[in-house]
């Protein structure tokens, strides 16, 4: 099953195209990192997926061909927005009460257990909680709905290091315990290397990179060699070149089995380096992701 599938998806705000002919398929069972420069369309894509906005053109389905915003999609997807919105004057217990009554499915017991585990008093007003606790409360409300897909927009941007660690630990533990698929947008590349096993890079409203992290890392190498000989790599699938006066580092779409020209060394690449290289080269693309179910003819 694909948790998100889009074809030719576009969204315009006035004359600005936030998403432009965006085609994507994200399989279930992953922690997916959505990265891209500001204005690349990350938040727009998330809003469309959770049904908070409607596409200008193209098709988008979630949770195996459900329409975003349909009852099945609303039940199966939980969304935590960038600023982890809560009613500041309501207590944690009241927030549970409200959320339970606004949703068809809500696991009160597990929500209370999780709040106890992370030490959030039920009677404390949401506005009096620390930033980390507010984020944890919003996350707890989302997880108590027992979603198949958890969507997080810049979840840790405002949190201190410990709160960030604890927040991500809660998300990833839910992935183990409940098998929830996770889609999160973030700018913190270094952290994504540990957290994500699927990467989607958006650039100028289009999908630039999509695939399993292991596949992407195995499919890219940094070739290091003399600047004077960079031209000998002209026919190689080069993504990005960095160089000084003498030495050049060339990120290319090759594997460890591919040889290197005489005088060059081939090194493995990390996720941060790979993502940065693509972000700097908006015209390069790597899309080893799965085929969309329509294309495959049959669903898995």
């Amino acid at each position: 099953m694909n948790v998100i599938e889009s074809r030719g998806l576009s969204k315009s705000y006035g004359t600005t195209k936030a998403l432009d002919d965006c085609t994507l398929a994200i399989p279930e069972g992953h922690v997916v990192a959505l990265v891209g420069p500001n204005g690349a369309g990350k938040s727009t894509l998330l809003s469309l997926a959770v049904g908070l906005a409607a596409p200008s053109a193209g098709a988008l389905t979630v949770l195996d061909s459900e329409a975003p915003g349909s009852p099945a999609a609303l039940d199966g997807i939980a969304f935590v927005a960038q600023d982890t919105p809560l009613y500041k004057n309501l207590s944690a217990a009241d927030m549970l009460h409200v959320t339970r009554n606004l949703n068809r499915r809500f696991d009160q017991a597990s929500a209370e257990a999780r709040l106890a585990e992370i030490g959030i008093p039920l009677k404390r007003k949401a506005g009096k909680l620390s930033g980390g606790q507010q984020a944890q409360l919003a996350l707890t409300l989302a997880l108590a709905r027992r979603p198949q897909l958890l969507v997080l927009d810049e979840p840790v941007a405002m949190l201190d290091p410990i709160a960030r660690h604890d927040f991500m630990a809660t998300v990833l533990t839910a992935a183990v315990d409940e098998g929830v698929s996770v889609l999160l947008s973030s700018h913190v590349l270094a952290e994504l290397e540990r957290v994500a096993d699927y990467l989607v890079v958006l650039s100028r409203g289009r999908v630039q990179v999509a695939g399993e992290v292991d596949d992407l890392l195995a499919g890219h190498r940094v070739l290091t060699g003399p600047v004077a000989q960079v031209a000998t790599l002209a026919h190689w699938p080069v993504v990005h070149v960095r160089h000084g006066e003498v030495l050049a580092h060339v990120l290319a779409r090759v594997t460890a089995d591919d040889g290197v020209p005489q005088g060059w060394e081939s090194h493995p690449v990390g996720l941060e380096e790979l993502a940065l290289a693509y972000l700097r080269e908006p015209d390069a693309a790597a899309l080893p992701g799965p085929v969309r179910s329509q294309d495959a003819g049959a669903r898995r």
Partner: protein
Amino acid sequence: MVIGQEGKGRKGGPSTSSGEVTTSNSPIEFRLDPASGVPTYLQLVQQVEHALRLGYLKPGDQLPKVRDVVASLAINPNTVSKAYRELETKGLIIGRPGQGTFILATLSPVVLPELDGLRRSLHNWLAKADGVGLDESGIMALVASELRDFYERHRESRDGAAGDDTESVA
């Protein structure tokens, strides 16, 4: 054994809904060094091997549950599974469904008879490198680079031979 995980392991913990006993009694706890440049799953593998060599882990001992590692390090669950798979392929551990992952074999501490000879040839090599003008950091860089390449090729040739259950990239 889970230290610093607020509220966890202190009491039975509320997370017993799955029926699992949360008192996981593994002798070891993993740590991560983001600056090492070693992939996360490999760091876990190496720490188990290291603990086996030093005798901190013995056959029958339990490794931390995947969930507990995920909770304490905030890393992707598949990373832990990958490390445990690798250790299982090496015949060092075994996963028992519903119970956990246990140490199967031990790694003898490095007291090989070849050790003296290896040490001598390494010493000779170092003297040679020093003789041609390589300084300490130059030697370190050379060794690190060769070591990495060697084991990378080693791993790849072995992974290739073990048959691939991973999806191939077109």
